[in-house]
């Protein structure tokens, strides 16, 4: 029975590390997220929580900068050999927590494991192979010309191959990825990242300590010890910050924004996010939705600014398309079009003047204010005689209903794993095709082969400017056809004590680079 609190995880790393800690890492940070990582195996699940853990305990080859550019991390430099291969130069002298040296065999081990992982294999589908040139240079090869190679490279966090090979005492393979069991990797961790996990009690507490041998000396981070406590209830989490129990919390619910602004010794940081929230109108279930005029009428009836201002308390950016600003597909010209008169007029033209009744479903604990947004939308539709029977469900019950498409209008939010517009269309607007997996979340059964073809072409277009023009054209067509009803991009918010300088380490993907955090 493992001793719980004091179990030193990946302890060998600390034991062998030289005693002299870098002088300036002395501060302690107490933080609270709404959930703690479900496992230490960063390939077991593709979720925000696991990626946040990866950035604390591992380092990617390249990582996103604040303005969606790329920053060299473990890959010192890279250059494109031809339109299907990219050569990377690995940084030298980087140590793992276990003391092993980072070499290309670790990158290969990680690449193979990613190809095995159920969650990550879809993202790495375009990759055909990895060539090892020598200890510190390797090449990534794709089957087709793939413009998003670097985007995907941000998901490669080299793992300590030696540490994760061989078998455990009771004969289990150390590198196994177990979804529901207890694998070696889910409890032990050795990465190159700034922090080592010193103790963990699932759902209660997690402690990290600064890795003495961290390769990135220039990192300004001076936090020696981090204690992470998951606090599920929004109210309690905000109270914990205000009562001084913790120094840094995320996420911050929109309702508590001004309470934190008013508090003199805490600081609030908000950023517009990249997760789009939208409604699908199921054309197969409701005859009227087949008519573009009716879809446009609904688009005109929904007041995105009102929802963003009143329900989200200004904590969301009203949207008229899928791609957020900064994405290649973002089309400046598309603006939210709230106009109840025009909506009524369109309904009259489409012959549905006295409206009809539809069912609507939304989750109540998946996205920020999801149930309140659905209620507001239902009220807005009632103004153009569309009577809505709304049902909100907890997320565990909601997704099976979503897969069965059991309501006429359904709410969904989507964040592009590749931080690129194409991902939105592939999952949300492509004609649904079971075996290729396209349009898996297209609850509107919207199908426009022309637009799908345009996106396919963009996917193999390596000239970024041309690619951007194509993607923006796709957004325009979807807008004109009112394929779905976009609402807003959910903003991100973090809050901390005044002396904890979180602003520089935060980014739009919500992966705080805690390694570089400075606490005065």
């Amino acid at each position, binding site marked *: 029975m493992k001793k719980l609190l004091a179990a030193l995880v990946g302890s060998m790393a600390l034991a062998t590390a030289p005693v002299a800690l870098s002088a300036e890492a002395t501060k302690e940070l107490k933080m609270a997220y709404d959930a703690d990582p479900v496992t230490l195996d960063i390939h077991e699940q593709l979720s925000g929580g696991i990626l946040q853990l990866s950035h604390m305990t591992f380092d990617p080859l390249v990582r996103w900068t604040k303005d969606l550019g790329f920053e060299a991390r473990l890959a010192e430099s890279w250059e494109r050999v031809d339109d299907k291969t990219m050569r990377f130069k690995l940084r030298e002298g980087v140590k793992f927590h276990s003391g092993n040296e980072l070499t290309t065999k670790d990158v290969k081990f990680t690449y193979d494991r990613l190809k095995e992982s159920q969650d990550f294999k879809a993202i790495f589908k375009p990759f055909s192979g990895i060539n090892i040139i020598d200890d510190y240079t390797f090449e990534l090869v794709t089957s087709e010309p793939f413009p998003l190679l670097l985007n995907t490279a941000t998901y490669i966090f080299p793992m300590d191959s030696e540490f994760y090979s061989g078998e455990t005492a009771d004969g289990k393979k150390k590198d196994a990825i177990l979804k529901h069991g207890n694998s070696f990797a889910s409890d032990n961790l050795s990465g190159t990242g700034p922090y080592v996990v010193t103790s963990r009690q699932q759902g209660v507490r997690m402690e990290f300590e600064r890795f003495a041998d961290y390769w990135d000396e220039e990192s300004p981070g001076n936090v020696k010890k981090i204690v992470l406590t998951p606090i599920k209830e929004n109210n309690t989490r905000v109270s914990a910050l205000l009562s001084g129990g913790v120094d840094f919390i995320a996420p911050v619910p929109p309702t508590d924004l001004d309470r934190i602004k008013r508090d003199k010794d805490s600081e609030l940081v908000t950023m517009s996010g990249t997760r789009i929230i939208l409604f699908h109108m199921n054309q197969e279930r409701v005859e009227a939705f087949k008519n573009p005029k009716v879809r446009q009428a609904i688009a005109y009836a929904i007041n995105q600014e009102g929802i963003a201002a009143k329900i989200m308390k200004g904590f969301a950016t009203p949207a008229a398309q899928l791609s957020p600003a900064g994405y290649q597909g973002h089309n400046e010209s598309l603006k939210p079009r709230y106009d109840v008169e025009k909506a009524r007029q369109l309904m009259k033209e489409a012959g549905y003047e006295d409206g009809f009744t539809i069912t609507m479903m939304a989750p109540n604990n998946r996205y920020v204010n999801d149930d309140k947004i659905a209620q507001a939308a239902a009220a807005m539709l*009632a103004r153009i005689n569309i009577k809505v029977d709304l049902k909100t469900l907890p997320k565990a019950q909601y997704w099976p209903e979503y897969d069965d498409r059991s309501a006429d209008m359904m709410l969904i939010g989507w964040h592009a794993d590749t931080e690129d517009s194409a991902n939105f269309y592939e999952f949300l607007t492509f004609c649904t095709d079971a075996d290729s997996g396209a349009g898996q979340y297209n609850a509107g059964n919207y199908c426009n082969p022309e637009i799908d073809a345009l996106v396919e072409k963009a996917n193999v277009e390596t000239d970024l400017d041309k690619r951007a023009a194509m993607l923006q054209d796709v957004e325009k067509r979807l807008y004109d056809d009112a394929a779905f009803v976009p609402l807003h991009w959910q903003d991100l918010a973090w809050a901390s004590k005044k002396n904890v300088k979180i602003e520089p380490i935060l980014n739009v993907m919500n992966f705080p680079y805690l390694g570089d955090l400075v606490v005065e």
Partner: protein
Amino acid sequence: MTTATLSRWNRFRESFLWYSFRRDKVAIVSFLVLILMVLAAVFAPLFAPTDPYDLAQIDIMNSELPPVGMQGADSAFPLGTDAQGRDMLSTILYGTRVSLLIGFGAVVLQAALGILFGLLAGYLGGRVDSILMRIADVQLSFSTLMVAIIVGAVFKASFGNLMFGEIAIYMLIFIIGIAEWPQIARTVRASVLAEKKKEYVDAAKVMGFRTNRIMFRHILPNTLSPIFVIATVQIANAIISEAALSFLGLGMPETQPSLGSLIKSGFDYIQSGSWWITLIPGLVLVVLVLVINLLGDWLRDVMNPRLYKG
């Protein structure tokens, strides 16, 4: 002065019940407040300025307006508006109606089951008694919350999700009724055991009455007083249980809020400025339950013969 055959009304006026009610100020005030609330709830459509169930009347733009008297208030919404822009006053009136409906409905169900099983267990005794009491024990080990989850799941499995809106009230009455009948059953059983020893029961047996006639015509009237007392407390409990279930998201849906789900929906806003969304319905809930409890207390002291001498 032989006791003339007084009419039922005179007998009531003469009875100790009316006498002690007149003298107990707390009971009078509680009774009046309760009647006021019940009337307001029953005639909600008349009093409520807007119909909270008609979505068209709700405008998102005037959400979270403070009650009149605070700056930024809007006279059209005396008690302010909730996060959706619904008028608090009318939503509370409808909400009180839902909560009262659930409270009384659940207790009627509890009483029916409780009296039936309590009488059977108490009067027949032996195997019937132990079986019923074991069922009661198993039932008690399920808290209201678990019953709610289980019954909720069964309803969803059988009716699917879309029907949930309309049948939510009946389902909640069913849940709270099922979860709490053992409380009344135990009380009835205890008083039946006490009554069973009395001579009038033997007299009835001697006269050859059938068992259930004895149980319902003779024993039951004598056990009414504890039932009354516990029933009032159970109504208060039922309303609070519904509020608790709503807090966990298992109560009434947002479109047809009860007091509990109103409090829940306002819960996120309580510490961040618009405290009234939770506190005003919370206040109404506390007053409603308080009044019922006070009446329950008074009824207990009046109905309980042993305390009468004290």
